[in-house]
């Protein structure tokens, strides 16, 4: 199964990013393909490389980046949502790229299922 995932909230404040990550990881482990994770609304804050959680807490920015690197998942941050919220190339974490909203519609068309995680 080919999957598209949309993440609408930033890390820590809402559980959305945690659940999306656990879901993506489980899907990949079962042999499904996560074609793209699209970060919209406050979800763009998942791409802030300055994020530095406490040492005993999970680091979602890094976890997403590792998933991208190890399994070729395309992590796309919405350009319009990012500009507003100050997520720019200067602070963009490894594994993420900034692009347009069309990338979300595109994965909706290409994937067998598209699922949203948000608040």
């Amino acid at each position: 199964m080919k999957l598209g995932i949309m993440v609408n909230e930033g890390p820590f404040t809402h559980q959305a990013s945690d659940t999306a990550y656990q879901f993506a990881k489980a899907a990949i482990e079962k042999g499904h393909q996560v074609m793209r994770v699209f970060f919209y609304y406050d979800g763009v804050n998942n791409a802030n490389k300055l994020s530095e959680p406490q040492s005993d807490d999970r680091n979602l920015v890094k976890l997403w980046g590792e998933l991208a690197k190890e399994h070729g998942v395309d992590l796309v941050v919405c350009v319009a949502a990012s500009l507003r919220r100050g997520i720019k190339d200067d602070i963009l974490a490894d594994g993420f790229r900034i692009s347009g909203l069309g990338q979300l519609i595109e994965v909706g068309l290409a994937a067998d299922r598209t699922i949203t995680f948000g608040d």
Partner: protein
Amino acid sequence: MEDTETMFDTEGVTKNFMFLNRKAPYGTIYAQEVLELVLISAAFEQNAAIVFMDDGVYQIVKGHDPSVSGMKNFSPTYKVVEMEKEDAEEDEDIDMVWKIIVEKESMEARGLSTDDFIINVEVLGSQELSALMAEQDVVFGG
């Protein structure tokens, strides 16, 4: 244009997209940013059901003026959505079908009628909306 850049082969694919608006405008940004998504989707010529239910029905109420609260008025964009819908209906070269729908129960619980809205909408009861949901391939918003 970056927004229509493609990476996957979606040539000839047509799907039914639902944009489900359940949040009030201005208190949160969801109403505004989902509109941007609806408009981008037009470039892909897909079927779209733009649904207003729960507090989402407040998004299309007439007379918004958020300037005194310091916010931007995105209300006119709903007219653009309505125009896209009408253009699709009139242009025989465009296959996409757009629907703009309000859930009856949500509208009535808020003491509203279709006269209160800035765009023309189709009013569906929960059961009819349910049937429409069953036809969708992708649901955005929530």
